[in-house]
Every structure is written in C-alpha cells, then in structure tokens.
C-alpha cells in the first residue's frame, strides 16, 4: 500500500474514507455491513480513477482529487442523515464517474462543438417546454420531471447547454471583429449581441416561471462574466447590469416571493416557525458545532429541513465544525482556481469560454448556496455541487467536470506551453 502522507494527497482521501466508513459502520444498530462494502467500492473507484488519470495523463490531476474529497464528505454526511439516500448518492457517484469519463472522451473525439449553437439553444428550449408542460412542482419549484419514481431536473442539464451556447457565440463574435469590415458587419454584430441577449433572457424567463430563482441568478452571473471576459464592449455589459439591477428591484416590489426571501434574510427571527424556519434552524445547527464540530452522528442536524440537499453545508458545520466548513470552502476555492488555470492555459477561444463557464458555474453556485445557508445573502434553492444529494446535480456536475478535464488535456497541447510560444518567436 502507498505510504500515507500529505505529499500524496490521494492517500489522504482514501484514509479519510476508510476511517469515515469504518466509523459509520458502528453508527447504526445493528452494525451495517453494507456501508463497509460500499466504502470499499468507493475507495477502489477513487483510487482507480485517480491512477487512471495520472498514469494515462488524462489532463489535470487535481480536479478529480479535489472532487473525490468533496464527494466523500458528501456521502458520509448523507449516509449519516439518511441511510437510503446515502446509498443512492453512492450509486449516483458511480454513475457520475462513468459519465465523467464518457464526457471526457466524447468531448475530445468530437470536434464540432463550436458550431452547434442553435442545436444547444433549441435543445434547451425543448427541455424548458417539456418541463413547463409535463413538469411537477416539488418544494415550490416547477422544474422537475418525474418518470416512474425517478425525478430529475432538466434545468441542471440546461446549465451546460447554456454555457455551450454562450461559448459558441463568443467564439464567432470575435472572428467577426477581426475581419476589419464595414458598418454592415457592425450591424450584424449588434444583431448578434441582441439575439444572444434575447436568448439569455428567455432562458431566464423560463427559470423565473419555474420559480427557480437560484438557477436564474446563476445563469445571469455566468452570462455577465463571460461577456466581461470575451466581449470588448463594456457599454453592453453595463446595459445588462442595469437591466438586472432594475429587474431585481422590480422583482422585489412586484413579486411576493422575492420580498419574502429578502425579508427573511434580513430578519428571520420575527417568524421563526414560519418563513424563517429553514434559515434559523440552519443557524442553530451551525452555531452548535464549535470549531471542531460535535462529532459525526453526535449533533442534531436532523432538525434542519432539506438537510440532505440545500442545507447539507449546515449539517457539515454542526458535526464537523467550523474548521470542517471552512475546509469545504477552501476545497471549492482550489477547484475554482484550478479551473481558472485551465482557462488561462487554453488557447482556443471556444474551449476557453466553455472552461470559464464551467468554472464560474461551480464557483458561483457554491458561493450562492453557502452564502444563503449562513445568511450572508438571501437563501436560494440550488444545490452544493458534488456534496448535495441529488442525481441530476451530481451527474451534471460530473459531466461538466469531464468536459473541463478534457479541455485541460487539449488546451495543454495547443498553445498553452512556454516552448510553443518560444517557437513562435523564433520562426
């Protein structure tokens, strides 16, 4: 066996999993052998996947490593909270790894990703329409499709399609810019921009109709961020920001739901048993852990509503302490950092845009949900990537990760390394 050391972080993930699954074995009476079995499979899969990535040089080694630690923390908390969901999450994890590799290879193989803008857009609208017509409302949001007991959220998948749509646009728009042509082209570019804006706002409109505020916010942030990075026209950026600000204010006054969320954020104590219930229970939990937590299984995170999904972070803070919570934030930060590194190292604009979109998706989504459950910002119902329970969330996250992984491999080969730059100079 490998020597366990900080010099090989993978050994630490495996060690943490061994100890955690071992501890969980004793958690329930009678002692649960299934969790030991599941634990061994998980450990094997993590070790195997990591070795595969490193030995075969399948791109950045750190992405999977960080995600493996995050998902491990996820299973452990979810199993502790709900045995059945814990096992389900582990199964989704296996599926997720499969999708991870699938996305990786598929992405590398297919070269025409940047030409399918309308395919993505139509597919997204299609999914939105289906959800609108056939969708079920679960916990206030009408963005679920339920087939034979299996529920999944199309909006998760649409996130990726959305990123690809934007990336296509920003790829082309630049080419237009380079060809120093006349007014005609400027008009086309203007139309292109407006067309994109229309598409984006339609997307957001659908989400708002579904009452999925968190995802709408996320889409908007991704749009603005990518516009900032790839479009040299700052005025347009400001215009959009203004629209957003006005829209937000209008929404606050016009929509009861939004007003409630903002008021509950500012002072949940006036209605602790009603509107403020979720956030106050979350705060009680976070405050009950101390710096090291109560210990796994020793706190009462079961008092928190939605604890396996939106509020999983609060449960982590209660049982694994403030240090545990901060560690999770740091892990997401390093993940985002790695993502940005990949963005910088990629030459091709399309790939750059996709990588940026995915990195921002992970980063901002994490900020929005953690910020919401600690009451830094108003609460929105989105998931914590890789940790929250949820098939759709986990699979989408792994698909996105796979794509990011693929870009890290490809980008490395065309235009990222120093020797290439040097070569260009000498020719």
């Amino acid at each position, binding site marked *: 066996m490998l020597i366990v050391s*900080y010099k090989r*972080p993978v050994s630490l993930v495996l060690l943490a999993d061994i100890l955690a699954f071992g501890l969980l074995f004793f*958690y329930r009476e009678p002692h649960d052998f299934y969790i030991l079995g599941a634990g061994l499979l998980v450990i094997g899969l993590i070790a195997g996947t990591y070795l595969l990535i490193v030995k075969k040089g399948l791109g950045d080694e750190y992405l999977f490593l960080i995600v493996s630690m995050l998902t491990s923390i996820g299973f452990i908390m979810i199993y502790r909270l709900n045995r059945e969901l814990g096992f389900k999450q582990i199964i989704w994890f296996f599926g997720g790894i499969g999708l991870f590799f699938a996305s990786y290879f598929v992405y590398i193989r297919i070269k025409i990703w940047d030409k399918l803008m309308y395919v993505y857009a139509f597919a997204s609208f299609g999914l939105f329409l289906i959800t609108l017509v056939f969708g079920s409302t679960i916990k206030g949001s009408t963005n679920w499709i339920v087939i034979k007991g299996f529920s999944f959220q199309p909006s998760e998948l649409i996130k990726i399609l959305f990123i690809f749509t934007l990336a296509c646009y920003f790829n082309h728009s630049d080419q237009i810019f380079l060809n120093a042509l006349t007014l005609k082209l400027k008009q086309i570019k203007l139309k292109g921009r407006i067309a994109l804006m229309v598409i984006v706002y339609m997307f957001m409109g659908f989400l708002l109709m579904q009452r999925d505020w968190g995802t709408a916010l996320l889409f908007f942030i991704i749009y603005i961020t990518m516009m900032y990075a790839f479009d040299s026209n700052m005025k347009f950026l400001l215009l959009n920001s203004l629209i957003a600000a006005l829209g937000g204010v209008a929404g606050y006054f016009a929509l009861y739901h939004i007003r409630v969320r903002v008021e509950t954020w500012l002072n949940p104590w006036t209605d602790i048993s009603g509107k403020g219930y979720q956030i106050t229970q979350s705060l009680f939990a976070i405050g009950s852990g101390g710096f090291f937590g109560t210990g796994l299984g020793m706190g009462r995170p079961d008092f928190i509503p939605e604890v396996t999904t939106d509020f999983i972070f609060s449960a982590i803070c209660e049982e694994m*302490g403030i240090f545990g919570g901060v560690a999770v934030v740091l892990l997401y930060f390093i993940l985002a950092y790695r993502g940005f590194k990949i963005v910088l190292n990629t030459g091709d604009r399309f790939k750059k845009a996709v990588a940026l979109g995915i990195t921002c998706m992970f980063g901002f989504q994490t900020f929005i949900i953690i910020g919401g459950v600690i009451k830094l910002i108003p609460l929105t119902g989105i998931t914590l990537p890789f940790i929250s329970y949820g098939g759709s969330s986990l699979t989408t996250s792994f698909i996105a990760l796979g794509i990011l992984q693929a870009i890290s491999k490809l980008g490395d080969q065309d235009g990222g390394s120093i020797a290439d730059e040097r070569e260009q100079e*000498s020719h």
Partner: protein
Amino acid sequence: MYEMLSSIMKYIFITIIYLFIYGIIRLIYLDISSMGAKGKQVLKKGGKLPYIKLINRRENLGFKVEETYIIDGNMELGRSNKNDIVIKDPYVSGKHLKFIMKDGKVSVQDMGSTNGSFVNGMRLGSDPVYLEDGDKIHIGQMDFLYVEK
C-alpha cells in the same frame, strides 16, 4: 462507545482534510515554480541553448511529455524521478540516456537501456556520440529532433 469514537474522530478528520488541502496547494505550487523556472531558463539564456524537440503528436502518446527539452549542461533522461528529464514512457528505462555538454559541444550516451537509444536510426553502444543540429533521436516511443544554433 460510539460517542467516544466519534469525538476522537472529529479531530482526526479535520487534521486529514487540512493536510489534504495543504498537500494539494503544495503540489500546485511546485508545479507553478517548476514552470516558472523553465520560463526563467528560457528568458535568461534567450534561446542560445540547444534543445530536443518532440516530433510525434503528443496526444498519440499515452504519457505526459513536453514539446521541447532544453539541454543545459549534463542531463540525464529516464523514467525515474531522479532524472533531470523525466518521461513516463513505459518503453523508457529508469535511467535511459545521458546528455553530456563539454566545451560547448553536446554528446549523447545510452545508459544501458532495455530498448536502446537510436541516433539517426543507428542504435547507440555504450560510448557517447556527438550530436549535430538536425540529428534525430529515438527513445522508447518518441522521436526527437536535436536543434542547435
């Protein structure tokens, strides 16, 4: 009983997670500084040094390898991490090849590798062979072009 285990474990878990974070940051930092060092090398010597350039397509090779390796003095090449140039090609031996720089001239010597080293198609013996601009070097699955100004 479980309470005691869990109470002890919480400290252990936190320690492991933070060691993990530290480990990753450390590796990333090492990566950056080695890239930075290479960059500095390039900037400092300004392209006056000889180098070997990979001819194969990198994506066809199943292992991580750079496009170019600068020959900056005596350098050893092989699979083992102890080499100056580390390439994890399964067909490359632990210590495969050595570049020797003397009086501004570069020669290459096979270190007793399993699959051999080839210069311009000719397999090297145990003696060093001088390299000239344009020579082709074959080791493992890779073909390199030797470039010297």
